[in-house]
């Protein structure tokens, strides 16, 4: 489970897919970085990702980690966003047999996990087929 401040720090990224763009080479990072991995520059501007992309690989998780047991089976994919970055996220609102490489997806806002009965509930991005 994610501790509250650790989760809270990343809310702009987790809720709204906010990344950053290198002013020198235009490379887009998600999550934001402080040093550009393409050109090593340190000068960035905010970049709001559009949240659409394509599945490049996926799996159906049947043995879940702590906090995800109720979701089993669930699909996880690596998605190449149209803006460039790649991210790992769940694919929801469909039968897991519909998930496939090459399918287009778009972002949606969902509950990710809850820390027991009394702990904080964390929210963030998942994706659905379009």
């Amino acid at each position, binding site marked *: 489970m*994610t501790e509250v401040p650790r989760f809270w720090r990343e809310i702009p990224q987790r809720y709204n897919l906010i990344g950053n763009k290198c002013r020198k080479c235009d490379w887009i990072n998600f999550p934001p970085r402080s040093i550009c991995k393409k050109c090593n520059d340190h000068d960035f501007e905010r970049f709001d990702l559009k949240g659409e992309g394509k599945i490049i690989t996926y*799996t159906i*998780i*049947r*043995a879940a980690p702590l906090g995800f047991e109720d*979701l089993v089976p669930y699909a996880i994919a690596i998605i190449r966003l149209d803006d460039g970055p790649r*991210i*790992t996220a*769940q694919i929801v609102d469909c039968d897991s047999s519909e998930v496939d490489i090459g399918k287009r997806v778009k972002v949606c806002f969902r509950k990710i996990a809850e820390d027991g009965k009394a702990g904080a509930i964390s929210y*963030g991005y998942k994706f659905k087929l379009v």
Partner: protein
Amino acid sequence: MSKKVAVIGVGITKFGELWNESFRTLFVKSGTQAIQDAGISSKDIDALFGGNMSGGQFIKQEHLASLAMDHTALLPKPAMRVEAACASGGMAVSAAYMGIKSGMYDVVAAGGVEKMTDVLTNRTTGALSTAADQEWESFQGATFPGLYAMIARRHMHEYGTTEEQMAEVAVKNHYNGSKNPNAQYQREITVDQVMNSAKIADPIKLLDCSPISDGAAVVILAGEETAKLVCDDPIWLVGTGQATGSIALHNRKDICTLNATVEAAKRAYGMAELRPKDISCAEVHDCFTIAELCAIEDLGFCDKGKSGQFVQDGHTRVTGSIPINTSGGLKAKGHPVGATGVAQVVEAVLQLRGKAGARQVTDPEYVLTHNVGGSGGTASVHIFGR
């Protein structure tokens, strides 16, 4: 400064669910065996580098280097813990090598130990998942089998690799494990058993996964002069390389290539002035069957995308052109994560000494070991020769 570095002694415990053994007893047993094998006294050891992934999570004990020195009666000699997830053992061997090459030490122990079965399975898998990117992989519900499953799915999509070909890796490694008295699983399995085992993260099934294990391994390294003095058959560490890759799988340029392996191998081959075809046999990091397929390709034993057929054609069996994981690999020998990289070196030394028993490769000249952390964030490659 010593020009060459040799392994002069090896020790290893049985791997498995060892309820009667603690972190301390495992480490002391393998260390004592290595010292006896080297024919030296523990007083001759200048320092220890110990690989361990997660004592804090598995046995709620950190500060492990001091603990190891205390219980092997080696106080007050220097000792350092090395952590690189499942590559911790391979990295401990690197650190020992650097200690000797730097001229600071002459005889160094490189050890690895992990005690994983003192906690319940979901805690163990939780601890292992900390080798992935906690914020951007694990937070989303990705597991380790899940990450390797995504590599497998992409490999199948791009190269036509089949689940049966992956199963062949497990079948071969279990066959080899059946010849290794220290292996966790000393029984053969069939492709059908792998295919019909419980699904963990499609296309990865239970028998595609390495197990949760307890175990320890220690090797003693020495500089050239000392090695020749104390040892009739020193095994030389002729090339070594380490490299890093992005901790999150999604940031890899190619999902099916562990770039850290490619880079570490390039460095090790370069130092040894050898090519993949010069290697007689290899111990590679098969935490999942797809990981062995990627390793065979990334180490240059076959072309990218051809590993499935390569394995199916028998090239990687003990009798094949490039035997892979004669020890049984992580799959059958077991995978006490911090010990794995050192245990691979033990197997390499046994093969080169001609002491690998029923799994002995005919007259090997060079043996390669390959140890990976996480889904490819770290890779360590060593090459040994007589």
